């Protein structure tokens, strides 16, 4: 297992340069957060990256759940589902692993 290069990250563990992201790096970021990535995690990570590239903004909880509902179905668009995958604050934690900026004004 490759060690995470901490010079790529800011104090809170977000990527300094968004272009440094790779699936391997996501794997390391997740490990650091104590999360073993499953397919369920990956579909949210890629949805989040698509959301960011489409709209140029990291979503807070509400828009994230709406976007997940729309793309992956209402069952997965519930905050409880996202909380089990990305405990604490799903928008922040998922954005961190997806290599995106920290969402502003997160609830």
């Amino acid at each position: 297992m490759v060690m995470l290069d901490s010079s790529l990250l800011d104090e809170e563990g977000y990527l300094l340069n968004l272009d440094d992201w790779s699936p391997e790096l996501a794997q390391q970021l997740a490990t650091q957060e104590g999360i073993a990535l499953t397919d369920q995690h990956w579909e949210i990570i890629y949805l989040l990256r698509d959301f960011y590239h489409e709209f140029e903004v990291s979503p807070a909880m509400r828009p994230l759940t709406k976007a997940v509902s729309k793309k992956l179905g209402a069952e997965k668009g519930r905050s409880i589902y996202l909380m089990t995958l990305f405990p604490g604050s799903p928008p922040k934690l998922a954005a961190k692993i997806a290599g995106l900026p920290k969402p502003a004004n997160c609830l």
Partner: protein
Amino acid sequence: MKNTLIHLTSSPYSSLACKEGLDLALVLATFEQKVDLCLSDAALSILTISQQPTPEQGKNLHKLLDGLEFYDIENVFIESSSLIPDSATQWSGITSLDSAAWSELFSSYQQVFRF
């Protein structure tokens, strides 16, 4: 809960005003406040489909328009006289108002903030 109108008038690429106005709209919506947008003057340029700003010019705020539905921001108003004739080059989610309805708009919200 108050209903809010965010009126964008500044060009997206001449200052931060347009961006910071949209940020406020997104936060209001995130906090489940009723918020509508309206555009006039130089801010109408965010509707143009084919824009490709460089980092020096600014963030591509046009891209956010399609994301508004995820924030439950349903209304983006413009005055019909400011519609450009070739609507194929313009974002299609707008609601255009005649001039009477347009000026009426500004007295139908508890708060109006211009950016």
